[in-house]
């Protein structure tokens, strides 16, 4: 018989060996996959699937009731957004909000970091104080600002109006179409200074002290040191801050939702408050999903552009 021939036996032995090897490989891999499985299952169900579901939704006139058919409308939701004046106003608002708050946070955060980056007493104490707004919930800091800027004898109104006479009595802040967004910008900057301080402090401390000493020997003054050593070497930190803060700024939602609801007259509407209203007040989920996808694409593009522009390698 063929099997009893030496060649046939060798084949059978190899097959057997491979089968055992596979069995061993399976036994090696099984516990590893069991380690991954629970987390991956949660991730696939609650992150990946919703992400794709929202993409599908954005191509439909999507109806929340599962018993009613949703209609496929192609790119109409996207076209609707591009011709929707409120969408563009929301876009302009977040754009302005992002530019002002990112610049404000970086400048002030860097300034505080420069002040703290020397031998001073109570460094840890100051660092903790400046960081406290960062770890305080957005809802609560928003409410504190609602109080500070309340038109009826709020502290800011009182100080600028009754004490300094710079503004009319009972000036409205969050209720004014021109002042509501700037008020929210002040809140955004105030809340973010501490975060920037910490990352810039880390960046400053990673600059080797010898560089400064060498430059000082060459007679450079403080401003020259700052311009030619500190700033260039902080470039990676600045890139990181700009990218992270731009994402945050474009994604602003809670302070607007809590303080103004996007009003008055959409003057503080952001892309996300607008998407939220479309989904949960008008139940136009398809349109809301399209807005969030446009938003995600903008944020990703901006991040890529910023990384390209800002991060050139610096070598000394």
């Amino acid at each position, binding site marked *: 018989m063929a099997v009893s021939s030496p060649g046939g036996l060798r084949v059978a032995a190899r097959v057997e060996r491979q089968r055992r090897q596979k069995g061993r490989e399976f036994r090696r891999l099984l516990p590893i996959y069991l380690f991954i499985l629970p987390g*991956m299952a949660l991730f696939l169900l609650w992150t990946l699937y919703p992400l794709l579901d929202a993409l599908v*939704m954005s191509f439909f006139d999507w109806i929340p009731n599962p018993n009613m058919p949703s209609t496929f409308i192609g790119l109409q939701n996207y076209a609707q957004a591009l011709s929707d004046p409120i969408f563009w106003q929301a876009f302009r608002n977040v754009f302005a909000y992002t530019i002002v708050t990112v610049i404000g946070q970086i400048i002030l955060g860097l300034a505080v970091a420069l002040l703290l980056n020397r031998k*001073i007493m109570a460094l840890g104490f100051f660092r903790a104080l400046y960081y406290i707004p960062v770890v305080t919930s957005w809802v609560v800091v928003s409410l504190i600002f609602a109080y500070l800027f309340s038109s009826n004898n709020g502290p800011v109104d009182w100080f600028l109006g009754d004490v300094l006479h710079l503004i009319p009595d009972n000036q409205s802040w969050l209720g004014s179409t021109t002042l509501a967004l700037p008020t929210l910008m002040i809140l955004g900057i*105030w809340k973010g200074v501490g975060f920037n301080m910490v990352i810039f402090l880390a960046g400053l401390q990673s600059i080797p002290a010898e560089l400064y000493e060498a430059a000082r020997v060459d007679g450079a003054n403080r401003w020259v040191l700052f311009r030619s050593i500190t700033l260039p070497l902080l470039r990676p930190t600045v890139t990181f801050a700009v990218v992270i803060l731009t994402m945050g700024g474009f994604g602003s939602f809670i302070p607007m939702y809590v303080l103004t609801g996007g009003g008055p007259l959409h003057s503080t509407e952001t892309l*996300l408050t607008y998407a939220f209203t479309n989904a949960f007040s008008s139940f136009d989920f398809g349109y809301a999903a399209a807005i*969030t996808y446009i938003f*995600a694409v903008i944020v990703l593009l901006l991040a890529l552009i910023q990384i390209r522009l800002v991060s050139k390698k610096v070598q000394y």
Partner: protein
Amino acid sequence: MLTTLEKASCTSRGRGLGLWRRGGRLLLYLLLIGGAAIMLSPFLYMVGISLSPHAYTLPSPVDVIPTHPTLNNYISAWTDGNFGQAFFNSAVVACSATAITVFLSATQAFAFARYRFPGRTILFYGMLATMTVPGIVLIIPQFVLASRLGLTNSRLGLILVYATGMAFGVYMLKGFFEEIPQELFDAAAIDGCGVLRTFWSIAIPLARPALAAVTIFGFSANWEEFTWAVISTNDASLYTLPVAVQQYYSAHGSNWGIIFAASVIAVVPEIAVFLLFQRQFVNGIRAGGMKG
């Protein structure tokens, strides 16, 4: 002191510098204290008004510190205002979600860091890539999914969605597990330790600092999460603190005494966690900043 003098006498500007320096230091501290006052005065108003007997506003914005402080606002917030229930909800949701996240990110990070297996690269980078997607893009379809599964308006729905935010933990812990010397794992293998034993008795004890950082970040994010909570819960008995405070504010806008008492209740745990674990916070943020 001597060194300063020596340095001063070495420079061309000579003697006036000592005085200059001292003036500069004074200015430095003045700036720092002024800045700290700006950062903190809003909190002073919150605390002051929460302790003040006038229910609605203060007599004058200068009187931040009430002359007759009282805890009445806290008592009525905790009992009538439903904030005791909200505190309980926040604690249950934030603690369970954080525990799940930390456990699942540790097991995944360990497998990604120490073993080769088919699909390793695509699974890890696939998960990492979703970190760049702003969370709010997810919230609308997550709401649809949760309503199909009957998980809206429930604590379980809150916990599951919060627990899903694992990517950061996986990323951070993977880096940490990779730095553990291979010899330790080799020794464990010779002793016949399986994956589970190696994980539990070698990797986890060594990763304690990183696990602490992931726990603290996770807890404070879950404690203050607002958007998913306000979308998915309707019953006041299920509100977490941020939602309860916001809902109270939109219903009783000018009752600042209670609003700020509730706000203090909402922020004290997260500020306390920060002050206790400052080092982990700062190091975690630095780790993020350095990779950029």
